[in-house]
């Protein structure tokens, strides 16, 4: 029996794990995207809590912008032993809770969704499940054994990716 931990992945952060007893979690995603990449065969997963589509200037946390977070997430999971062709992606979040953008551009949630998918395409990683858009906040939980779960505010937890072992 391996001792696991619940690892909180907060705004702009990335975490990876190969411990089947760990759970990577981002609580209360609004317009942010929780992006999980999972190699089920090797039991390795990573989670990025992405805030915005693309980096404009400066550095900032590596997980903040989709264009920088996605390659970094792939890099860290493969560095831990994941096989790149085995990586599958699951997206959760990207809701439009408010219309707050002062520039009048499209809502951040939808732009985040598009930017993350575009960055995944460049990395040639398939999106196998997604729970994005709408107006409700969500929590994502990722188990390195392969399971990815999503829970909407006031809703039940749903399984977006089955774990390999029950």
């Amino acid at each position, binding site marked *: 029996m391996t001792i696991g931990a619940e690892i909180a992945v907060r705004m702009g952060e990335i975490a990876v794990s190969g411990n089947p007893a760990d759970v990577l979690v981002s609580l209360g995603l609004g317009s942010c995207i929780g992006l999980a990449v999972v190699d089920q065969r090797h039991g390795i997963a990573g989670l990025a809590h992405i805030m915005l589509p693309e980096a404009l200037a400066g550095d900032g946390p590596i997980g903040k912008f989709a264009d920088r977070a996605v390659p970094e997430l792939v890099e860290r999971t493969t560095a831990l032993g994941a096989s790149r062709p085995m990586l599958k992606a699951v997206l959760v979040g990207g809701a439009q809770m*408010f219309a707050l953008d002062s520039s009048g551009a499209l809502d951040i949630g939808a732009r985040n969704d598009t930017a993350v998918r575009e960055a995944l395409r460049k990395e040639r990683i398939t999106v196998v499940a997604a729970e994005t858009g709408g107006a409700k906040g969500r*929590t994502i939980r990722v188990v390195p054994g392969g399971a990815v779960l999503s829970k909407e*505010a006031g809703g039940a937890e749903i399984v977006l990716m089955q774990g390999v072992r029950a």
Partner: protein
Amino acid sequence: MSTFTTMQLDALRELANIGSGTAGTALSQMLGRSVDISVPNAFVLPLGQAVEAVGPPEQEVTGVAIPLAGDMDAVVLLVFPVEDAATLAGMLGVEAGTEDAVSALSEIGNILSASYIGSLGAMTGLELDLTPPQTVTDMLAAIVATVLASRAAGTDTALILDSELRVEGEQCSLSFLLLPEAGGVREILSRMGVEA
């Protein structure tokens, strides 16, 4: 990463103190009850930690977001725990969870923000206007993170001015947050004569 001196944080806290005092008076007049106001907190935190500083991430709350227009880019956010939102709706004679309750809470948001922002404007000389309130019930983290993300393109830290108002004799409190964009904070500080 932007940081503030103790003197600057004190100035911001004082601003929040006066703003929430005015807002508390407005709430008290509306309800005909006493309202207690906490000493405000001024947090400057990395974005990742800012959400947790406000409260438990998955707590179900009603948030009223009011973006400001004018000399400073900021969002005012009122956060009510759902039970407290229901109590408040009851005090105003509307049924919790209905459209009427949503408009009543939005209107409270409007009135309190107008008082808060009015005193902030008077102290700093900034011309500030409220835009219409947007009210949602959801997880605390989702609401706060979404508001922060809308102003986060150019900054990795959040300044949160957090005051708590409590209606005396009722289980009813709300948090009043002012989340300015980085340029907005500099503007406030320079108007108060405590720029870096």
